[in-house]
Every structure is written in structure tokens, then in C-alpha cells.
């Protein structure tokens, strides 16, 4: 029953316009950001960066670092998180609006199976949300690299690290998808699910992470256990993060968590949010 239901949900999701529109937005944003960085690098926008900053920007638009920069656009605290929230909230909440839940549940599909299948169907578009910036950004930065350095330097790319980073980025988006899923089930509202999800991903977490460091190192460390902090730990392992305000680094920033803890933490959040969604869904009356 799970596989049949998953097949149905995958088809419903991938054959509608929404995920492709979101992927197009990601592709466009990747082109735009990479293009602007290229122009900045060339001082074409009148920006007079110092030598060090120019070199940093150059690294971001050329291989190998350009590939990793492209993926970062899909991160949880960046555009990827926002679009995952929109996709997850919309696809679940609209089932209530369209009354299609009654169609499946009234045919003997168990509620936990339905919800699990519906969430599982989100995994492919979430992965695509990371792959699309990688491919688009990778292509553009590849062209820039050839133009700037005369060679692609594919041999300089740590492909296994890139693959791992791609998967890790997609994995770090799961708590946002699951949280929005939960809100959609609880509120039965697309507006509420997307609104609360976006507010959490873009405002709440960022604020908490910023403010926690003002109070104490312990609080700053605790804040690393939020999904955004776990994502940071997973994606920036072995690098000390410096929590900053207004671009000025604060010394004594919290050391990141280990990748293993980050992976486990993300899994715990995802499972807990989904379990809560299932618990609520099982209790709901699906009237007219």
C-alpha cells in the first residue's frame, strides 16, 4: 500500500507546475547571484573591493569553490529553505482545500501511510532543489573559470566532497519540509503553513542564532542544536563559525557540532515533526 500510495503522490507532485516553477526560480537566482558576483569581481559595478575581497569573490565564481557556492544557494537559511517551505506547505495543505484526502482515505489507505508517502514524495524535488543550482551554477562558473583562468581545472574539484555536500545540503532541508508539513496538517491552511514556515526559516532561527551569542557562549552553543545550527555544523564542519552582527565578527564564536551529531539531530527533528503530524492527522475529522 505504501509504494502504491507513494507512486500516486509522486505523480501528483511532479506533474504539477509548482515544483518546476520553484526550480526555475532557483535556477534564475543562481544565474543572477553568480552573474552579480562575476561583475563584482571585475569591478564592473563600480565596487572597489580590496585585493583580498576580490580574490574571495573570484574563488566563489570559479571552480572548484564556485561549485560549492552554487549549492549554498539551496541551503536552509537561503533560498532553498524558503522554496522547500512553499512546496511542502502547499502540497499538503491543498489536499484539504481540494478535498482529495477523502478520496484516498475513504478507499482504505491508512492515514499514517498516506502522510508518510506524501512526505516521501517530497524527497525528489528537494534533491532537485540542490541539483539545479549545482548544475546551473556549475555550468556558469565553469564558463567563467575558462574565461578567467584559461582552463576548467576539473582535476582540482573534490568530486566526492561535492557529492557529499550536495546530499548533505538536501538532507539539511528535511526539518524545514517536515515542520511545514506539520503546520499544514495542524492548520489545514496553505497560508498558515507557508507563512509560519517562512517566518521560522528566515526570521526566527536567524534571530535566535544571532541573539543567543549576545547572552552567553552556552546559549550560543545551545542554539547550534536548532535545524539551522545543525545544518551549519553539517555543511561547514571543521571550520569555526564566527557569529557576527552587522558583518563584524564576534570573537569567541561557538565551535560547531560534529557532523555525526548534526546528522542525528536533523534526523530527530524530521522524525519528530513527522510523528507529530501523523498524530494530529489521525485524530482529525475530515468533514465536508
Amino acid at each position, binding site marked *: 500500500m505504501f509504494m502504491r500510495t507513494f507512486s*500516486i503522490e509522486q505523480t*501528483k507532485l511532479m506533474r504539477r507546475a509548482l515544483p518546476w516553477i520553484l526550480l526555475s526560480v532557483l535556477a534564475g537566482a543562481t544565474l543572477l547571484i553568480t552573474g552579480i558576483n562575476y561583475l563584482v569581481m571585475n569591478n564592473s559595478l563600480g565596487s572597489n573591493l580590496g585585493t583580498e575581497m576580490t580574490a574571495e569573490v573570484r574563488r566563489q565564481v570559479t571552480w572548484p569553490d564556485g561549485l560549492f557556492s552554487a549549492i549554498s544557494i539551496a541551503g536552509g537559511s537561503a533560498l532553498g529553505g524558503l522554496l522547500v517551505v512553499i512546496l511542502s506547505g502547499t502540497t499538503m495543505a491543498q489536499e484539504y482545500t*481540494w478535498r482529495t484526502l477523502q478520496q484516498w482515505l*475513504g478507499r482504505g489507505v491508512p492515514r499514517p501511510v498516506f502522510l508518510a508517502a506524501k512526505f516521501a514524495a517530497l524527497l525528489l524535488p528537494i534533491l532537485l532543489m540542490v541539483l539545479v543550482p549545482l548544475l546551473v551554477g556549475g555550468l556558469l562558473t565553469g564558463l567563467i573559470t575558462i574565461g578567467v583562468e584559461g582552463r576548467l581545472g576539473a582535476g582540482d574539484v573534490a568530486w566526492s566532497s561535492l557529492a557529499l555536500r550536495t546530499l548533505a545540503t538536501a538532507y539539511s532541508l528535511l526539518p524545514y519540509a517536515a515542520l511545514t508539513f506539520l503546520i499544514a496538517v495542524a492548520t489545514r491552511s496553505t497560508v498558515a503553513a507557508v507563512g509560519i514556515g517562512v517566518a521560522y526559516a528566515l526570521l526566527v532561527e536567524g534571530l535566535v542564532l544571532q541573539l543567543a551569542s549576545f547572552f552567553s557562549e552556552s546559549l550560543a552553543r545551545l542554539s547550534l542544536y536548532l535545524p539551522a545550527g545543525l545544518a551549519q555544523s553539517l555543511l561547514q564542519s571543521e571550520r569555526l563559525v564566527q557569529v557576527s552582527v552587522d558583518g563584524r565578527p564576534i570573537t569567541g564564536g561557538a565551535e560547531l557540532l560534529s557532523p555525526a551529531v548534526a546528522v542525528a539531530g536533523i534526523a530527530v527533528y524530521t522524525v519528530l515533526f513527522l510523528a507529530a503530524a501523523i498524530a494530529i492527522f489521525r485524530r482529525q*475529522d*475530515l468533514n465536508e
Partner: protein
Amino acid sequence: MNEIVLQTFDLAKQYGPVRAVAGIDLPVYRGEVYGFLGPNGAGKTTTIGMALGLIHPTTGRVELFGQPVSPAHVTPLRRVGALVGAPSYVPYFSARRNLQLVARLYPDVGAARIDEVLEMVGLAQAANRPVRGYSMGMKQRLGLAAALLHKPELIILDEPTNGLDPAGMREVRDLLRSLAGGGTTIFLSSHLLHEVEQTCDRVAVLKQGQIVAQGRVSELLGQRQVVRVRVPLPTVAREALLQSGVPADQIRTNGSYVEVTGLPGEQIVERLAAHAIYPGEVIAQGTDLEETFLELTREAV
């Protein structure tokens, strides 16, 4: 009447202070067409929702094919097809694609069956157009097609002819008769009483969440039939009938007539004759389901 395919046991649903359904007991037998009637807000759709595992009963239970059904136990629903309220569909898909999605739940349902049900409900020509552009009647036909797709043993229909023109209603009525003739059990909720009268074997009338009448259509109509008997002394005739056991609320005098409800004319004449009262005229006034329904739902519960 043999196997019971749908049965409720003291089924009730309360929403805060509102009692939507209050202790319903009804059995639906295999192969019959069962009508479920009631005014708006009587609890019909809530009852159907509980039968389909979409709504949690406050008390009582539902069984399908002898197995319990609830939001947590839905396996028996695999043998049921349902159209409840407005039809459910994916608006950006065509009718055919919608049915193909549903068909994935049933390994035995193939493309041929999809074509067959589209033909049955009159959607074959429009099958490949997105459903978002369909009229209400077309969407209703699609909902019916989805309910019939896997040849269910029990079909539960809530207002199946909603949005259909008279020709469409006739088609649906004929379709239901054909399905019933083939042994499919049909549980039908409708406001169209003449449709129910023509289609259903048994009915239940619901008012304020309670069943106020239940039984074969002919029995229900018979119970409400009024027989007018012309007698020389109506008050004496009334007393005679009371003595013979006819309840007082079923007897009314009206000029030179005594009007009796719920008894066939032959029995009335027999009881009067036992008291040496011989009617000059006996008139059985026919009643239809609509009149019966209105009377039942007007009466206090």
C-alpha cells in the same frame, strides 16, 4: 435479505454541544438499494463520513462486511466505492489521468476498465480535458466514475445526481438500477425523494441526528396511507375503532367520514363490521414518499 454489508451500532457524533448524530442503528443488506433521507443538517453526511472512516464516532461503531471500520481501521473500505459531497479530483489532471491515479490502488483495474466507467458515466468524449474546466455535472460524473472504478461490493453515494440535468439524473438512476441488478449494494443519500422512491428497496429517514422511520418503501408508505371511510355516525365508528385497538392518534373524524392512518382499508372495514358498522364508502388516499418524508420530519422527535 442475507448478509449485512453495512451496519451501525448506536452510532453517535457530538461536536461540543451539538449532537450531529444520535444513536443510529441501521443494517444494510447485500444486494439492496438503501435510501438515506433527511433534511439539511439531519446528520446524513456525518453518518456517511463515520462509515467511511473519515470522522471519529463519539460513541458506537460501524461495521462493513462484518469488520469494524474507523479512522484507524480502514481495510474494509477497499471493497467500498464512495461519492460523498462534492467530488474529489486533482484539478490539473484530466478525468482519465485522475482515474489512472485512483486505479493504482487496485492492481486489477486496467485501462479497459477506465474506458468502461468513463463510458458508463458519459465522460468518454471529455476524458482527456483538465478537470478544472469541467462543469459541476461533469465533475459529479467523474466522482461517480471513480466510485465505480474497482467494481466495489458496496457503493455509498451522497447526492449522486447533484448538478446533473434531468437527462443525467435519469442516466444515473438507470445506472444504479443496473448495478443493483448485478448484485452491488447501494447506500444512497438524496434529497430527490421521487428518485429514492423509484430506486430504493428500503429507506431510513433521519431527523436531528435520529432515525425517525426505517423500513421498506412500500411499508413506510402504507403506514402513512390515509383511508377515508364514510359512516352514518362517525363518532360511534371512532369509538369502535378505538375499542378494536387502533391508536387514537391514527383516527380522525371529518364530517361524515372517519379517516384512519396506517391501516389497510380491508382491516378497517373488518373492525367496523365487528361492531355492526357498515361503511357506505371506502377511499384509500395514496401518499408518496415526499409527503411521508415531510410528515415524519415535521413531527417532534
